[in-house]
């Protein structure tokens, strides 16, 4: 058992870090090195940097496309996405030393869990959604839901102090194994998620830079 915790807590994080960053760098370089394609923009699009940033920010924060065109999915998806944003925020707060603040973790976990489950249930029960879904689509949602599910059960979001010393250990290359089994389990799940992230569709948040900036928004004004 100790050996396993040591592996998960001390060895695997560096592997994860390498695979995660390597994977993302590979994907981004692959797309960034794409040859310049023919103009294929869609009008109208924001032509100033300010306009583009604000449109992307609105999309990320409110999922406006879903709100306008696919309302049935919007609520659950918003719940899941904000759940993820809050959990990431919580992790950053923990790293930064605000270990007393646990609500973004709890709230984020809850939102993410119910959002992802809500999408999965709808994906499965709506006949139309079901026909376009592959097992991988459920697997993605399952992974997204599993972290908060286990986290909420094991009280992960209340262990900020332990998590922080653990994370600092990793960051300073003096790794210490996670203080207890449940913490180790949560850390394992997060690592699995990160290992998979760059290689699946869930990396769409990064791909969006290219689909919007390089394709849909074009790169020149039509008046140029």
């Amino acid at each position: 058992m100790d050996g396993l915790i040591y592996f998960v807590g001390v060895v695997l994080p560096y592997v994860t870090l390498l695979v995660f960053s390597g994977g993302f760098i590979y994907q981004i370089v692959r797309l960034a090195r794409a040859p310049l394609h023919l103009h294929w923009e869609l009008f109208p699009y924001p032509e100033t940097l300010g306009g583009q940033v604000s449109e992307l920010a609105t999309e990320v924060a409110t999922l406006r496309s879903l709100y306008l065109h696919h309302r049935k999915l919007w609520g659950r998806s918003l719940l899941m996405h904000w759940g993820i944003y809050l959990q990431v925020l919580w992790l950053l707060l923990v790293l930064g030393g605000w270990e007393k603040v646990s609500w973004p973790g709890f709230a984020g976990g809850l939102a993410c869990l119910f959002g992802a489950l809500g999408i999965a249930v709808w994906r499965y029960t709506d006949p139309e959604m079901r026909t376009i879904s592959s097992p991988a689509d459920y697997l993605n949602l399952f992974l997204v839901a599993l972290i908060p599910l286990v986290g909420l059960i094991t009280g992960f979001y209340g262990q900020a102090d332990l998590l922080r010393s653990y994370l600092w250990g990793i960051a300073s290359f003096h790794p210490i194994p996670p203080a207890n089994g449940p913490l180790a389990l949560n850390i394992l799940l997060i690592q699995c998620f990160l290992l998979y992230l760059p290689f699946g569709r869930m990396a769409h948040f990064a791909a969006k830079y290219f689909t919007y900036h390089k394709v849909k928004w074009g790169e020149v004004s039509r008046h140029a």
Partner: protein
Amino acid sequence: MRKVFDDYRALADNVLRPDEPRVDKFVEAMGKSLKKENWTFWLPYVLSLDYCMKCGTCAEVCPVYQASGRREIYHPVKRSEMLRSIYRRYFTLGGKLWPGLVGAKDLTEDGINALAESFYRCTVCRRCAYVCPVAIDNGLVVREGRKILDAIGIAPDELKDSGTQIQLKAGNATNMGTAAFLDIIEFMEEEIADTWGRQVKIPVDKKGAEFLLMHNAGDYLAFPETVMGAAVVLQAAGVDWTLNSPATGINDVVNYGVFFSDGELEKVLRAQLKTALDLGIKTFVVGECGHAFEALKYLMQRLIPAGERPFEVKSILELEAQWIREGRIKVDPGKNREIVTYHDSCKLGRLGGLYEEPRTILQAACQDFRELVPNREMSLCCGGGSGFAIMAKGDFLKFRMETYGQLKAQQLTDAGAQVVALACSNCKGQFREIINYYKLPLRFAGVSELLANALV
């Protein structure tokens, strides 16, 4: 013809060759399409293969899916997945290791038949791409799929053998010779005198003119009012302009390569370019033709270096709107008293950015102008796009009418319009049929025609 996908067949047996083995060739052609030699659309193509979240938002706005009563086979994601499942199976590690998990499938001959037909049910209107949260482009997937099909010899003969190939040989896809062309011009001058009471001399093959106006050659036969209207407007504006005959090279602005092949796209563009250079004109004016504007204004930019095309490209709509704003031409809206509405062609609107120009013209030239709902970037494709307007084999016309056409007919009825103004030749072809098919109490008219009618 036997059934391979739904009740229609866009591709005849001699084109589709449904019983010949084509799987290996398809996979090979697809392999090539994924390489950077397919640079023209590599980035959007790869993004659209890899990052669709299967959220289904595209289906909510897809005209053919909605109009079909949400038939599963017309779901945009279902269609794109036909190509993606091959991509995953033959070209990704995940698909080779866990085909069932990621949605990878072996390609079969029947699979090719269904894919080929399915990829000629979407007009590449890109309404879905406009609303997709990830900006994934089902229309582009369709176009890339058509390119692969063309690479293994499957392309509608209307678009290729009797389309681009004829155009490159005869100068226009209608296969009209110079003598016939000049006859039509003469006839038009007489018609203009009869209809508008104006003496118009239509200049042809004039070298060094400021504006070379190139129409969709089909307009000379099917929609002569557009050609005549434009001539009246250009003469009224007092500009130095010309049409050209097939004797000078290409005198047809269409480019069906836009719909299925980058190779054909480039060949036609280069031939048009050469004609314009030989004539030594200053501005290449695209007549009322949506996809031609896309080709010459946008697709050409990175395909042919700027130094090789020393002229500007403009839509006739841009010039007409500009001349109205400048007061160069004067109009009296009282001369068009009917209720007029405007249909945004996908290629001129979403793909071309021309939303204001037609409205400037129509609001000035018509007494009662009303919008269709929805319009502009959310305009519904009429169903004539991506080549469909000239494809009517078998029951294909019925497909066009019962799906896209049905939505459009409803929209026109709701608007209560008496005239629907159009600025795209393929739209005109489709609306002519919609109006017939649904016996709608209205007519269509070219924007230039309405403008000519309102000139004082």
